[in-house]
């Protein structure tokens, strides 16, 4: 899975052609606790790198979900809206959030690979 990159806001992004699948990391779900609500961007809308592109809520608090790259939302995962607990169960696979048709592949360059992210997550364990 060397094509998966990670952001400092704890999102993962997997690029296939010019379509990126984005979700939140396992580390993020562990910090959030039980996720009980998810809101996703609208299909067809455009999102900007580092802008908000959704919300997840635990019983305690709401947290924004950011997009690590810019693009047009081409698909969203309704399953996690209907059953947000799926995000805790399988965050880095079936519980993806949205797919983007990306504009600028170079936006991927500043993101972390798995080893760097794991180190980052360990150091920012709050």
């Amino acid at each position, binding site marked *: 899975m060397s094509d998966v990159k990670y952001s400092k806001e704890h999102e993962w992004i997997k690029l296939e052609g010019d379509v990126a699948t984005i979700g939140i990391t396992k580390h993020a779900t562990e910090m959030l606790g039980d996720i009980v609500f998810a809101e996703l961007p609208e299909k067809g809308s455009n999102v900007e790198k580092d802008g908000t592109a959704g919300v997840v809520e*635990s019983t305690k608090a709401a947290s924004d979900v950011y997009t690590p790259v810019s693009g047009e939302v081409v698909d969203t995962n309704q399953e996690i809206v209907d059953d947000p607990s799926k995000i805790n169960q399988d965050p880095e696979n079936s519980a993806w959030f949205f797919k983007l048709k990306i504009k600028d592949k170079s936006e991927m360059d500043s993101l972390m690979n798995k080893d760097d992210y794991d180190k980052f997550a360990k150091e920012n364990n709050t």
Partner: protein
Amino acid sequence: METKKTSLYQLHQDCNAKFVEFAGYQMPIQYSEGIVEEHKFTRNHSGIFDVSHMGQLFIYGGDELIKDLEKIFPLDLNNLKINHSKYSFLMDKDAGIQDDLIITKINEGFLIIFNAACKYNDFKILKELLNEKYKMVLDENRSLIAIQGPKSSQILNDVIDGVKDLNFMSGNWFLFDNQKVYITRSGYTGEDGFEISIPNNFAEKLTRELINKGSKLAGLGARDTLRLEAGLCLYGHDLDKDKTPVEANLKWAISKERISKGDFIGSDIIIKQLNDGVSKIRVGIKPEGRIIAREKTKIFNQSDVHIGEITSGTFGPSVNGPVAMGYVENEFSKKNTKVFLEVRGKKYAANICSLPFYKKSYVKGVN
């Protein structure tokens, strides 16, 4: 000020608690299984809550103390039986709520359980009001352990024989390991359960025995979702100095006998509000979809006029949906009134509903 630790701190750590600072204490917000599981386990089996941060005030005295306390609390304390408890509040002269509490009449006088964040202030207020006439001990040598949920009666009774015979909202002294513990059948989750006042040095031993009998630790996170589903108020959120018991829809807790006499602090305002009505009142609010409306969310009527604010809101694991409480203008407080909640700039439909969201009958005790 350094944050304090309860006598169960080590046990919380051993059970992988996530801690949060609350009212000057390091308290467990959740353990490894998480808030939703802890919540459900409490509803279906039995959960243990460390509430040792709460204030335990013993006031020693007899008939004169009863008369003096009746000037403060809107309760018929004279006719309250020994070892019986009542929910009440400490009000200021404008009937603003300074704290909500449980008061129990014991042989030696009274035991009052206060909220953690208010306890030192409450102690000071009561000392002044009682003119230091009575011996008063805000006992920090005792822990307070709550065990809540349908299996709790059997589990606690296996450890401390006889507790299952207590009636709801009554208590007594029992022995655990030759230590005097005061146990009331009460709690704040909407479940049958008990609160145990126990010397600090024995709190961990008792809790470990309860865990061995099948109960599990649950954190403040689960305590919050449980109490909100049960429609119970959280001080500092649903109740504060700007709200009266009538506005908080807690008039059931005010003694009719004492209203007729009208001689307690805040009684003028209480009587006026009972006669004339109030402009705002606490209600239950059920969002129509999955949207969670949290504290400070604005409430609008169907004509888009701002009519109130949410004071507590979360996802209710047993209701399997969002739940909230808040204050609205009185004319919009009827059950099934449609309102709108502004969350992240968008308005979402919700309905005023009766409380609690989750109902289970409190056990009245055996026989």
